[in-house]
């Protein structure tokens, strides 16, 4: 039987549509435990490829007869080998094109809304890593928020919509992924905005993003209103877009809240985080639709694959917004935190422009889940 190839895009469709899939992950056990392809109806078997070098007979009985089988490894090579062995043994299987590296890099553009004056808002779901970025398009112009390092995806997408990228924003200095903001700005001659309090050490020029800044996109303007909202980082800034959407960066997620410790200042920033979540956001309309920079678990995806929820609903349901006691809140966001994102300090340095690792090194640095939240 022939071995099939499944692309990250095809796997993403299965995640969004909650389809069934049987994944044989042939990476070593610790890598699998740390990070894998998540799907509501996915089943898993983890057997490292190096235990299958002498044959796959021992695992043949573990595959269901009625499900698609996908073999996954780090970069593709081992999954091709194992898929071929399984195929020779009579099974119909696919391998994941590009492996977990490609999975980590795949971006699924999902349209979130049509904006008031003919504009459009897209969310780019980085399904493998849980990062969310945004593009606002209006009348031939585009603005991008919290871009990943896959700069071409955004530039090409804007082009396909016949829009020129005019503004690029980062809500904060990211610690879990390498920002594509600067590169996109360089390619498109757009203005790159960063909160100055997060950018004290950056070695390139940028436009300081400050509380109350308003930026227009398109001739029929879509308003992007910056709102200072420290806590995850000291400079963290949120945006109110088109009076309908609240982009919260890494401050507030759907089922969790931002962690204040990734720049080494958890204790100092707890107060800011609480102030932002319990006072500043509270003063906003409950009708605003929250668009965060991350999701943690696949359950946070809506039916169409997007990640969003009304602020009012989050105030009712998100545990992190409902810790009345200040001491308990402090404990929640400073103790028993999940492990820090892989290479987060190197990633911060890269985002400051202090180091310029090559693409392969950047891939290695970003391996794994984002881990920016506290539940």
């Amino acid at each position, binding site marked *: 039987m022939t071995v099939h190839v499944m692309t990250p895009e095809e796997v993403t469709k299965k995640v969004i549509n909650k389809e069934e899939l049987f994944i044989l992950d042939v990476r070593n*056990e*610790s890598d699998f435990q740390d990070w894998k392809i998540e799907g509501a109806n996915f089943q898993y078997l983890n057997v*490292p490829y*190096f235990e299958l*070098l002498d044959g796959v007979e021992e695992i043949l009985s573990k595959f269901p007869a009625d499900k698609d089988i996908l073999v996954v490894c780090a970069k593709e*090579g*081992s999954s091709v080998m194992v898929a071929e062995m399984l195929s020779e043994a009579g099974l119909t299987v696919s391998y994941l094109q590009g492996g977990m590296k490609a999975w980590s890099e795949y971006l699924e553009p999902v349209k979130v809304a049509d904006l008031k004056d003919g504009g459009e808002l897209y969310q780019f779901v980085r399904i493998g890593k849980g990062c969310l970025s945004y593009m606002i398009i209006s009348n031939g112009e585009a603005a991008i928020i919290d871009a990943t390092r896959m700069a071409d995806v955004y530039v090409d997408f804007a082009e396909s919509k016949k829009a020129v990228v005019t503004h690029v924003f980062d809500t904060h200095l990211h610690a879990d992924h390498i920002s594509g903001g600067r590169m996109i700005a360089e390619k498109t001659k757009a203005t790159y905005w960063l909160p100055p309090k997060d950018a004290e050490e950056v070695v390139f020029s940028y436009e300081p993003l400050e509380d109350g800044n308003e930026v227009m996109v398109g001739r029929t303007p879509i308003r992007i209103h910056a709102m200072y909202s420290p806590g995850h980082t000291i400079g963290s800034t949120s945006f109110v877009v088109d009076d309908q959407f609240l982009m919260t960066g890494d401050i507030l997620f759907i089922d969790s809240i931002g962690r204040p410790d990734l720049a080494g200042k958890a204790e100092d920033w707890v107060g800011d985080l609480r102030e932002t979540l319990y006072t500043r956001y509270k003063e906003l309309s409950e009708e605003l639709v929250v668009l965060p920079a991350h999701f943690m678990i696949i359950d946070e995806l809506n039916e169409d694959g997007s990640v969003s929820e009304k602020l009012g609903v989050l105030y009712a349901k998100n545990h992190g917004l409902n810790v009345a006691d200040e001491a308990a809140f402090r404990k929640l966001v400073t103790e028993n935190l999940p492990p820090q994102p892989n290479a987060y300090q190197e990633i911060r340095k890269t985002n400051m422009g202090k180091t310029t690792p090559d693409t392969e090194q950047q891939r290695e640095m970003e391996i794994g889940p984002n881990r920016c939240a506290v539940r």
Partner: protein
Amino acid sequence: MENMTVNVQLDAKGLACPMPIVKTKKAMKDLEPGQVIEVQATDKGSKADMKAWAESTGHQYLGTIEEGDVLKHYLRKSSEEEAVERKHPNVIDNKGLEKKLQENNSLVVLDVRETAEYAFNHIPSAISIPLGKLEERMNELSKEAEIYVVCRTGSRSDLAAQKLTENGFERVINVVPGMSEWTGETESIE
């Protein structure tokens, strides 16, 4: 720093996963138990995989040295040494040696494992003479000194202790079990 002697060198540079492991597995077949292989690879993922593969197959993963883009992995083929009955009568356990070292750090500790094993993990003051070289290098040691002989599990050091005794060394003590369970201070080139 140390000169590491290896029995086989394997070039897996430029090869992507799974090839470094596939080639290592093949090369390992031709090694004698206890011999050491150096695998040169450029695939960054090979480090974690070598380690996990060695653990699953019973070979010893000694360590990895990075030289520019090249990762040099050191592995030792599994041997049945644990099963051998020990004969040298004079022994001390790890804790005992650790205590003695705290009292007197000029004790003579002789590490008879392969140089690559020594390189990645050894007692700071230990002298390295692999068991296979002991015969010819015995003259580097003083016959009057108290010599604590250590290896990974106590078997090679037992053979070394017997050999030293046969050659007129009178105060030879075998350390049991040795480096596999050593919790005291260590040094490494990593």
